[in-house]
């Protein structure tokens, strides 16, 4: 799995490419655990190329959820494939996290 960070003035976009499982979750966790990530107003997660997410992958987002909320950093997912969205939905995360269809909506969110 590959994580590419694209920072702009107040937004950080993370492109996820591949399968997010227990081993690749560490890469993402390192990225999200960086202290300066909380300086952004928004963190957008581009899931266009995310083909699979395991419970360990979900765990990474869940573990940082509270921290982002406390720092008032908005976490927005977009371009999510249906299969991946189902996983979020079954777990009930769609009610908890902002998941939008496209980049435009993500930027507007």
């Amino acid at each position, binding site marked *: 799995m590959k994580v590419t960070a694209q920072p702009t003035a107040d937004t950080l976009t993370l492109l996820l490419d591949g399968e997010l499982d227990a081993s690749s979750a560490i890469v993402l966790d390192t990225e999200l655990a960086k202290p300066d990530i909380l300086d952004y107003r928004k963190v957008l997660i581009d899931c266009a190329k995310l083909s699979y997410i395991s*419970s*360990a992958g*979900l765990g990474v987002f*869940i573990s940082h959820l509270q921290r982002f909320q406390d720092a008032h950093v908005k976490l927005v997912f977009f371009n999510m494939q249906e299969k991946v969205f189902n996983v979020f939905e079954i*777990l*009930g*995360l769609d009610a*908890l996290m902002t998941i939008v269809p496209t980049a435009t909506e993500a930027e507007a969110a």
Partner: protein
Amino acid sequence: MPIERLCRCSGLVHLCYSWFYSVPKRLLFSLLPFSLLTWVLLLLSALSHSGAEPWLGNWPQWTTQLTQAAFVLSVFLYYRYQPSPLQGQAFVKLLRRLLLGPGLLALACVGLHLLERQAKDEPIFSGNSLFFTCIYTLNLGLFVIFLARTNYAWRALVLFRSSARLQREWTLFEMMLGATLLFRLVGVNPPDYIGIPIVVLLGLYGIYLSGHQKWVAYLSQRDKWNAVLLQAGLLFGVLVFVQYFRVTQVDPQLIAPKPQYAFLLLTAFFSAFYALMGLLVTFFNMPIADIIEQRRNEILRLQRLTQIIQRGQTSAEVYNILLESAVQTVQAEAAWLDLDPGHAGIDAAEATYYYNLAPNQVNVLRELLKGHELPEGEFITNDLNLRPGFAGMPQAFRSLLQLPLRGLHYNYGMLHLLKAEPHTFDREDLSILQTFTSQAVLSIENLELVHTSLENQRTQEELKIASQVQDSLIPKNLPTDNWFEISSHSLAAKEVGGDFYDFLHLPGRRLAVIIGDVSGKGVTAAFHMAQMKGIFHSLMQENPLAKNERDKFPVPSRFMTQANTALAHCLEKSCFITSSLYIIDYEQGGFVFARAGHCHTLYYHALREEVFYFESTGLGLGIIRNDTYEKHIKNQFYDYSPGDVMVIYTDGIVEARGEGGAEYGEDRLKLRLEETYFQNAEEIKSFILRDLNAFTHGFPIHDDQTLLVIKFKSAQPPQ
């Protein structure tokens, strides 16, 4: 290689070649009597020519030539096919036996010659060539034997650890010598302008072969002196013979035939030259013998270190051998080895190993060295006495070599070697000792590896126990009643897993069924699974303060909220649990359930003859760890009819991977239920599992799998 090509081109040579290697055994046994016979014939022939014994008549000239050639050939062949005179690396023994055997013959030859000279002046022998001829022929015989023995002793030395190519070259040399003998035999006397170059060429070839003195390198210092003396003796022996034949050749009394000039001359030349070369090589090797011997000892010590690894000794032994080998190699007068207490390796009894030093002396030295701020790594100082503090030492060491025991991840310790003389350690010493230390570190790391693998084995055993314990947490006796059937299946991806399910009978003809899946796998998940089971049983207790019957036990959504609160304190941050709780009331023919992020329940509705998934919302446990969780979980009520089937499972079933990474999926599961809803619970479960196994055949299970099938039956009155 031109010589080889020459060998290959000529068919005749090739024939000789093969003949050389395959002399029949029987022929070998007859060689000794044959050579004796030819010698006697040679003597008789010589006597006949000398005219000393008129009764012998006058034999033709060729008989002498023939018998002589036959004698030379048989003696050479006899020695050729004897077992190699060199046993192992007993070079000195070989030389000594050569000198004491054929070498003494040379002395006898001299004696006989002198005797003959003495006797010649006596009137009684005057003009009598009988005695002269006899002695001459005897000497010739001795000379041939001496040359043959020397020649084949040299062969053994030349071919010591040689290549196949050199062996072929040697055989060619023998064959060329044999050819000169053959020419003599047929009486061909080539003119000088052909004969001399041939002899010179052969001589040069002999010089080339004499260059092979590999064996000298294997002599120890003392053996080298012995070898020099013995070779000088042999050289002397050959020269005595050659001188003898030089003198007698021009003797007016010599009526006997000339010896096989070319052949004997060449062989004698080769024998003498080889002895001379050997002597010189040995002699000039003398100064470096020490170094060679030292290198050999280093190799031996290194071998010993290596063997220690294979025998699986303790680290203490490895350190001892390292210290001992290091001291011997650089001839240090004192040494100590400090080990890092953190990484000294297992079962290293002491932290310091001493050689020729007392612990208190080392303490003093250590303190002194500390003050000089030596570098961390390898270091040589050859003027320790010039450094302040060292001058007044009782044992004045002037040279110090320090070397760390460098491992892959850390240093195991530091080796210190001391000598009294200044300027005695050099880079060379350091590099040899580095080989030793790296070998020792390898041994230590190897021992640790063995230790770790034993530990691993123990861990495996413990995991097996954990697996048994977990197995006991999964209900073995499924609840039975005539209102429903339950069938279950559970399989962990590793020894222990994070899936669980349980049942609990509640008063009022109700049954609680719970299924859950802890995120992640293995031991962590198994711990949380056990916690969840505990939470289930403690929360499903009767509340005595409840106002009505229905409130005595928590409804599923209430249960999930309470479980979420309980788990908030013990779940890891990135860990969560999905779960569904069903409370089936079979008196009322209905059930209530809450889904906390768990997989959707698959349901067959008998009246509508329809298979569907319950669509309900609900958040997993441990995701929100505050009071707001309550808002994210809901109860759902449903009335069932007889014949309805409920399939409850974990994501290990629907996310199981098959060909090309495809997932089993909810749709496929639904199809299977549509095909089997009319069967009993056990049959439905087996059918689904068979299909799942066919789908995932040949691919590893990467998540725990749990499957429960509940089939409701016609309501019957309680018994």
